[in-house]
């Protein structure tokens, strides 16, 4: 059986350099986290996997078919994408923004099911109380939750999230990641780019480590969170501490007295 989403030897050239080189992966349902330093190519990989960008070499396949062979309207029923940078040109309310997520499902008028999904999505991201406020008047964290609700309302089997915990406080980060984990357990494919290693270890089923456009390693959090591997990826020494059966990742401070 073809995997849901796969990349085969994908390379991507832009602005005079290779942003990604020879990345191969096969994604199946579950919660995957993409880790790597800034500039490692996390956003580029997500955009290639979403079909928005076309690989310079290699191929991205969705359900076994080249992703470029899908028309945008069909693709929008299969995967949703949360970008890092978001904007809004006209003053919509938060609910109207979330309702845009229903667009791929609608032919004509709004269906009762649409309203149901919108209300559900707002509740899942803890944004119900924001529904009637103008989106542009919301704080960064509130916007992130509304945008996540829009992605949820799109109701796709695949969700690609570029730093979904941006601007969120610790509690909201936990809520978003446990939501992502649950969606993964319920049989969706969630792939999120994150920065926080400990949080990733806590929630993800599989980790992908990206460095300078190459996929260094992939696997279970227990295998991936090895100090040597992390140091290779991020260029700083790390300590991995087991605490009550959970793994915590801490940077190792080389000179005593720095802290």
């Amino acid at each position, binding site marked *: 059986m073809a995997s849901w989403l796969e990349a085969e030897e994908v390379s991507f050239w832009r602005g005079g350099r290779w942003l990604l080189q020879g990345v191969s992966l096969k994604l199946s349902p579950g919660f995957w986290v993409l880790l790597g330093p800034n500039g490692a190519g996390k956003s580029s990989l997500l955009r290639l996997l979403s079909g*928005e960008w076309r690989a310079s070499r290699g191929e991205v396949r969705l359900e076994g078919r080249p992703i470029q062979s899908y028309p*945008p309207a*069909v693709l929008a029923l299969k995967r949703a*994408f949360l*970008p890092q940078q978001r904007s809004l*040109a006209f003053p*919509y309310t938060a609910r109207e923004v979330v309702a845009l997520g229903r*667009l791929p499902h609608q032919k004509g008028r709004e269906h009762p099911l649409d309203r149901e999904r919108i209300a559900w999505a707002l509740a899942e991201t803890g944004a*119900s109380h924001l*529904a009637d406020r103008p989106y542009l008047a919301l704080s960064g964290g509130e916007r992130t939750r509304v945008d996540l609700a829009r992605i949820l309302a799109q109701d796709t089997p695949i969700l690609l999230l570029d730093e979904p915990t941006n601007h969120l406080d610790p509690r909201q980060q936990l809520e978003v990641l446990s939501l992502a984990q649950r969606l993964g357990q319920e049989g969706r494919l969630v792939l999120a780019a994150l920065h926080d290693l400990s949080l990733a270890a806590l929630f993800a089923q599989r980790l992908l480590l990206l460095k300078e456009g190459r996929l260094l390693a992939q696997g279970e959090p227990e295998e991936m969170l090895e100090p040597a591997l992390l140091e290779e990826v991020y260029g700083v020494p790390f300590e991995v501490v087991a605490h009550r059966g959970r793994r915590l990742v801490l940077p190792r401070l080389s000179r005593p007295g720095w802290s």
Partner: protein
Amino acid sequence: MRQKPFDTERRRQGVLLALALLLPLCLLLGASGGAYPIAPLEIPRVLKEGLEGAAVLLNIRFPRVLLAAVVGGTLALTGAALQGLLRTPLVEPGLLGLGLGAAAGAVLWLAWFPLVPWGLPLAAALGVLGVLGLLLRLAAGEGAPAGVRLLLLGLLLSPILSALIGLVQFRVGDPQGRSLSFWTLGGLSGASWELLALTAPLALLSALALLGLGRALNALTLGEEEAYHLGVAVGALKRWGLFLIALGVGAAVAAAGNIAFVGLLVPWLLRALGGADHRFVLAGAWLLGASLTVLADLLARTLFAPAELPLGLLTTLLGGPLFLFLLVREGWRG
């Protein structure tokens, strides 16, 4: 809280219904007013009994108010659609120089084919496409917000286009005596059934097709990438949308010159009335633009009767200050 989406929905339906009722009222008012006033409620009797006002109504007033409605509705709707496609509330066909591009196309057509009037709106549409192509090419790149860049370029292109129109007219007389100020300030004094027949099919066709773009334009509000992720083929949408806008603006300007600010004022009013959902704004813009233009034309005809004010003068005096106010209040966003 539960009630809110239904409230907004109901409110929008209410506004659209009110606007749909306003339009026939405005048409009636427009047909009754003028140098030879006929009471609105007398109109059916005058027509039926063939009284002396009947000829005025049939030959002058009816084509004029209908043309005003078609032109005004088209300008407002193309303004709203242009704002959605370019993702900024700061643009309208007139300000971007599209109207003058249409006028330049029309004037050039008249210079070569003065006796083939059916080509006029199409030549004007080509003029719009030419200016659009130039604008989008010049405005590409980084720097100031896209809306501000487009606006600045449009304002720079406008005097150049005016000069071009003036030059062509200087060399080639217009058989119908349309002057440079007709093209730049607009007016409906040339209205006739023939002109309406020339204008309405193209304008209404473009309007009907534009009305279908509401949902896609809503998605575009989030950005071109987001619209793509929501299933919109963005490139095709922009090409099709700009083509339809060019057809509409071409038809409207070929018939009535540049009636400025209708395309800016009307969408703004509608967003204030019922929010920014394009499905609502586009439909409302056509209705409100039609009504306001019929009323503005009535004023232009009657304020200094028997002299007639250029229609664009009035709309500029109304819309210009509002635009300034918005620009300052919105802090040059866009």
